[in-house]
């Protein structure tokens, strides 16, 4: 859309990830444009989360390249960066399939920890902080304001002082997104953000993700099983099965792709046991 004339924000080329004899990702290539929502879908075990792990430095890919076109820092090779550098230098921030908050800390503290690097620099390795110098105090105040802004946007401000681990699951998912937004992401990688949300919450999530993309030019890479989310908000969908990309295109194209329907529902004459992780029916969901 907006960045169609430019090079894509993220370009994945021939990515392979093998664990011993198992090929989790096989020759995957994918472009992610700024200002768009790109969804990665596929049956369970298709390699979606492995793909995220390769992207964000938690796994080192066996081969292939992941290049990020950073507006300030130029081209960055994500596959060579450590996981913390992917977040701090490349500004590619992820959430996790099983929510990973800091459960004993408050919601506000969770969001302040996400701004660690900026605060740590301002505290001059804690020296300025120990002395309580005004420069550090200002930065801390600014960090709190950023956190409060994110919490307000995600409708969490009332729970700012609550202990994160005590809150309901749906709220914890939102906190994780709010926390990721505190890292100033260029590309936000969300691993099943709608899992465990009720229909109203997932409608709110749709709105939020769209406002992030349209309002701030953020790129979102999304793993999701909830087809009402995927089909409604994605600009581009990539379907994985057994680590291979089997289809790519707009939501409409994907819904009518015979390969995709086969991967999700299986073939008529095939034994169902091969697909013990059959997903919510794709075709029926898409009408909603």
């Amino acid at each position, binding site marked *: 859309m907006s960045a169609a004339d430019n090079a894509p924000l993220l370009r994945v080329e021939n990515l392979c990830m093998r664990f011993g004899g198992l090929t989790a990702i096989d020759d995957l290539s994918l472009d992610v444009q700024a200002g768009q929502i790109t969804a990665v879908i596929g049956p369970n075990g298709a390699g979606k989360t492995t793909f995220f792990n390769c992207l*964000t*430095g*938690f796994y080192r890919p066996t081969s292939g390249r992941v290049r990020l076109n950073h507006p300030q820092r130029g081209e960055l090779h994500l596959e060579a960066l*450590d*996981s*913390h*550098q*992917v*977040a*701090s230098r490349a500004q590619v*921030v*992820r*959430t*996790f399939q099983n929510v*990973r*908050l*800091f*459960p*004993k*800390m*408050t919601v*506000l*503290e*969770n969001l*302040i*920890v*996400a701004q*660690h*690097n900026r*605060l*740590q620099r301002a*505290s001059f*390795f*804690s020296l300025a*902080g*120990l002395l309580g110098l005004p420069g550090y105090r200002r930065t801390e*105040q600014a960090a*709190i304001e950023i956190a*409060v802004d994110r919490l307000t946007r995600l409708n969490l*401000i009332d729970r*700012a*002082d609550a202990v994160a681990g005590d809150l309901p699951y749906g709220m914890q998912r939102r906190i994780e997104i709010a*926390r*990721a937004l505190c*890292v100033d992401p260029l590309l936000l990688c969300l691993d099943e953000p709608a899992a465990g949300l009720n229909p109203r919450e997932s409608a709110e999530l749709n709105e939020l993700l769209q406002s992030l993309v349209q309002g701030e030019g953020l790129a979102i890479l999304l793993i999701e099983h909830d087809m009402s989310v995927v089909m409604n908000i994605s600009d581009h969908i990539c379907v994985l099965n057994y680590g291979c990309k089997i289809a790519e295109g707009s939501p409409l194209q994907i819904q009518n792709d015979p390969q995709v329907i086969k991967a999700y529902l299986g073939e008529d004459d095939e034994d169902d046991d091969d697909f013990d992780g059959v997903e919510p029916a794709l075709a029926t969901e898409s009408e909603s």
Partner: protein
Amino acid sequence: MVVLAHQAPSVAQRCKDAGAVAAIALLLGIPMLGLTTVDQGGSLLVATRWPTLAIFVALCFAGRLLARYAIDALQARARRRPAATLLRPGARHQLSLWLGWGCFGVALALPFVFSDNRYIVDTATTVLIYVMLGWGLNVVVGLAGLLDLGYVAFYAVGAYAYAVLSTQFGWGFWQALPVAGGLAASFGLLLGWPTLRLRGDYLAIVTLGFGEIVRIILVNWTALSGGPNGIASIPRPSFFGLPFKPGDDSATFAGFFGLDFSPLHRLIFLYYLILALAMLTNLFVSRLRRLPIGRAWEAMREDEIACKAMGMNVTNVKLSAFAIGAMLGGLAGVFFAARQGFISPESFTFNESAIILAIVVLGGMGSQLGVVLASLVLVLLPELGRDFAEYRMLLFGTAMILIMIWRPGGILSQRQPTLRHRAEAGAAP
């Protein structure tokens, strides 16, 4: 055989439970109590003590029965108590604040009240050393969540650094203090670097090994450490250049202030010195906890992977926790050497590490006041138990078990947030 059911167990169930304990006691008791060796005309004979064993087994049976009744009664009462009467977190925080200031007041006044009681001042000094060590280890274990079983190594490094610097190079206490602290911190990095990838049990084993390595080096490197004989006649700290010596001239502490010389002066000075060091440690650690680095330690304890995903360099965070914890241990070590005047590897065994760790765990991981309470319990109990001679360790163990039953999260397990939205919105200090 813990009875978990909510309704009270029947008498038969209780007897069965106590019977099982008695059976274990019997099994253990046969070799430990039932059989004994006697020296008869130069040869060892095995004699039996069945009556003693019978009494022991009967005591275990009765004790278990009584303990079970007591625990059940306590639990039933706790269940009956309505939730509303429990303290709100805010009130609890207020309470612990008052308790903290109370402890500090008592600590300040103690040498005046007991100015003629050498034993009390000496024991209080020991308590404060453990408080300081506990606060230091709290950074590593309580905040950063890195289980360290070899903390005594840094204590030893600090103590030996001061001992060597003062006896061989003539350094004073205050000169050696920062150098020894720095040296201990670099040992912290030395331990932290190879263990970066380890967590939990694995880390505990490596740190345990590290503690032993340091002790064994001290035993064997005779040229530096004096080996098992240790280092003696370590100079005592002076009062800003005024030594604690008998004499009427103004070059001694007593002479300068026009007091009669008393050996207690130095004792009381040492007491205030460790009180000051401990309070500085407390200030330092509670301040750090409110800074990015402290929050990073706690976040790392909660979820290391999430920390990485937030762009946090976990390596640096871990190493800083190890280094700062080690530095505080080293500073306590310098004080220890200066107070004792003599150190040997005997003082730095695994037992010490275990006690310091017990202080942190019993106090409630990460709680500063909890460390104080736990050190009081763990240092004073063996002291008070001296009358019980060889049974004092039994008493000590029982107390630890009781604390863990009564408060599984430690004496004070309430975590205080480092910042609040409500307070920030109102009046930022």
